[in-house]
């Protein structure tokens, strides 16, 4: 399996500011995904990030609010912009590895105050 590291693991941010979350993988992977998990809820896909192309966003998520970078095959960032309390969630990076199997990082826990 792949080792997926996310930073920060937790943060408390003021409303109106932005937070950038980093995801580092110990292997080269083609497909990386960003998910949001609101308190007590399941995981919702935000976007798919493939190296060398623009991220593909799911319905309800837009690039202005959730800009994503994917500069190489082992790294991606997700920025959550113009924070509001409703953005308080866990943000999870995941990768497709070894043919369909998808692994997750430990998540970045965001609280907006």
């Amino acid at each position, binding site marked *: *399996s792949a080792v997926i590291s996310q930073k920060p693991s937790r943060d408390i941010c003021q409303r109106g500011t932005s937070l950038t979350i980093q995801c580092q993988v110990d292997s080269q992977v083609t*497909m990386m*995904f960003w998910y949001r998990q609101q308190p007590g809820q*399941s*995981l*919702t*896909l935000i976007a*798919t990030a*493939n190296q060398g192309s623009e991220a*593909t966003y*799911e319905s309800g998520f837009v690039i202005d609010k959730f800009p994503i970078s994917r500069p190489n095959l082992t790294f991606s960032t997700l920025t959550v912009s113009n924070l509001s309390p409703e953005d308080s969630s866990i943000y*999870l990076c*995941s990768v*497709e590895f070894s043919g*369909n*199997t*998808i*692994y*997750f*990082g*430990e*998540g970045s826990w965001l609280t907006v105050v």
Partner: protein
Amino acid sequence: GESVGLHLPTLSVQEGDNSIINCAYSNSASDYFIWYKQESGKGPQFIIDIRSNMDKRQGQRVTVLLNKTVKHLSLQIAATQPGDSAVYFCAEIRITGFQKLVFGTGTRLLVSP
């Protein structure tokens, strides 16, 4: 709309019992399913997967059953232990131009000693 959902939000069992967690899916075109375990404060952990050309797959203490006729998936945990207490998610991979993982709502498993 299409969805992946679970029948029971909470399942309470005694240590040593067998646990069965159920999941219904609605997209008959899905061809790959994964069960994840999420412990408190952690990201989802891959447990076991199954492809649509199979109806059963076994791992260590876990078995996944797939019934394509009724679009039903189950996770069986043998000799449940307190360390199995977590939220369990089923997820399906839908091929819509590219692969993406869609999660069900989750079932919380509580194991009493």
